[in-house]
């Protein structure tokens, strides 16, 4: 095949793939500005009124706040657990290192519904045993979301640690730094790209998580994805599209901001 033809084929395939990913996103964005209540094509006109609907809808506002709370808490806890876990995976000669590594990535592989059901049963049992009202509480949600965050954080932090030359830590200790100071002054700054990227991906995954949350939310206490789902059960007006657009914006801005500090393309 001539060279230019081959390049056209390659670019065409890439474009097709990109289109496939972008099409639903673009469609949702477009839909958010339709004037009519029942989406139909072509649109009867354009309007921003659906965005104005959002602040008045308690399910969306409280859902957004709960999602934000849960995701931030889960990301923070997930990172706190993922950093020492990653250090152990990369540095120590644990006999079951491979197994542990796989286990830590497992939440990515297990279907979200299975994970949610497992958490539901687990938290239920724990609640019956201790009478601690875990199920339906924010803490119960945070625990499950932490599990969603950990695989991303571990993956990206271990990747970052893997490129770190361990003798620079020895050099620091040789120069008089205690292990804690060495970690704070040398290790942490060196793995910062992995930490930031891990936090971002963990946060985004947690924020958009629907399946695991479905089992764990309490009455009148829903996360944003669940609020969207519930709204869709009754109405199909473009408010949902408007909410989705805002969610896409929040995540997009988070990625852009992160990219200013750490070149994401270098760590992912």
């Amino acid at each position: 095949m001539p060279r230019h033809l081959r390049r056209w084929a390659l670019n065409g395939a890439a474009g097709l793939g990109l289109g496939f990913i972008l099409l639903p996103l673009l469609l949702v964005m477009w839909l958010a500005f339709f004037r009519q209540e029942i989406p139909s094509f072509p649109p009867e006109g354009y309007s921003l009124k659906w965005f104005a609907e959002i602040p008045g809808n308690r399910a969306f506002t409280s859902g957004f706040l709960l999602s934000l709370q849960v995701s931030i808490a889960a990301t923070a806890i997930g990172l706190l657990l993922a950093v020492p876990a990653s250090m152990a995976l990369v540095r120590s000669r644990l006999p079951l290192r491979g197994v542990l590594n796989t286990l830590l990535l497992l939440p990515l592989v297990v279907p979200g519904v299975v994970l949610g059901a497992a958490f539901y049963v687990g938290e239920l049992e724990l609640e019956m045993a201790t009478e601690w009202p875990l199920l339906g509480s924010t803490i119960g949600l945070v625990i499950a979301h932490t599990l969603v965050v950990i695989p991303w954080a571990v993956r990206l932090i271990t990747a970052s640690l893997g490129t770190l030359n361990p003798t620079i830590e020895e050099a620091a200790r040789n120069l008089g730094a205690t292990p804690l100071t060495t970690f704070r002054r040398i290790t942490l700054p060196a793995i910062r790209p992995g930490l930031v990227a891990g936090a971002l991906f963990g946060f985004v995954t947690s924020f958009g998580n629907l399946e695991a949350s479905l089992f764990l939310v309490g009455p009148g206490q829903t996360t944003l994805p669940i609020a969207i789902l519930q709204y869709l059960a009754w109405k199909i007006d473009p408010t949902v599209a408007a909410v989705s657009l805002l969610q896409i914006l929040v995540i997009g801005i988070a990625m852009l901001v992160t990219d200013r500090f750490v070149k994401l393309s270098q760590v992912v």
Partner: protein
Amino acid sequence: MARLELSGLSKTYGAVTTVRDVSLDVPDGEFLVLLGPSGCGKTTTLRMVAGFVDPSAGRVTLGGEDITHRPPWRRNTGMVFQNYALFPHMSVAENVAFGLEMRKVPKPEREQRALAALGLVRLSQYAARLPRQLSGGQQQRVALARALAIRPDVLLLDEPLSNLDAKLREEVRVEIRQLQKQLGLTAVMVTHDQEEALTMADRLVVMAEGAIRQVGSQQDLYERPADRFVAGFVGRSTFLQGRVAEPGVFQTEGGLRLACDPAARSGPAVMAVRPEAIHLHPGAEDNSLSGTVEFTSYLGPVLELHVRLSPTERVVLHMPNRGGTPAAGLGESVTIGWPRAAGMVFSEAA
């Protein structure tokens, strides 16, 4: 600067002993080199001095203080690593000042001392750069400055030149040696490169299989190797397997009868001969043998010949290159010989 003493130092990992009963006394201001093949325990020994490896037995004393089980951050040793180990996110000046910062030296003083240390390695103008903006040789000089800035009791060098190319190696080698002398530092360097060891050391320690084989000057090691290993590791030698048949006579397995030191113990033994000790067309040498030239190599200052003496024995000899036509060509029959004293005999009797 201080005197460093190791006594009976050992390290065992499970059933494996990597360092066995190492005792050394390094006086103040000496440059000691630990030389040996990889896996001989030289690096583990150095790491026990730095505190990165906890000894299984024995003692490390620095300046009269027992530091055997003291953590690395509370020993005043300055280490230079093979791969430089500079902190990538800190500037050159911050790297050099790090040890002083850990010692709580006030900022103005530590900046001034860091700059002075950088001056020692002639890199003051690079203070604001990041390590990755420097060449390998410059990075290793920064690492040296960083180790010197804390005014260590002992400077530890772990294969500091191995990552540098040949030309830079020469340059940094001279730099390290000059600074060590100028500052009167006690230094211990680990290397597997004998040329590096011979050119830098005040005194050398040859290690193999976790133990010290010989301690001595360059001349001691080269001219009076303690055993077959040292004779083969420091400089080149041809080894002839055989036995001391009667006092002063060494009989090779191939049937050659050679004159040797009359004091050599009778029984199975090996004779080592340095290539430059063997002469072509000797006059009246103690050993005079005929053979065939099987291989020649032009090395510049010397010509190397491989001469077959018996079906199983071949010796390597070096003759000074005086220019003109070579003294012996391939396949030529020649007479070679060496003095009795040049045949170093190592007994292999159990």
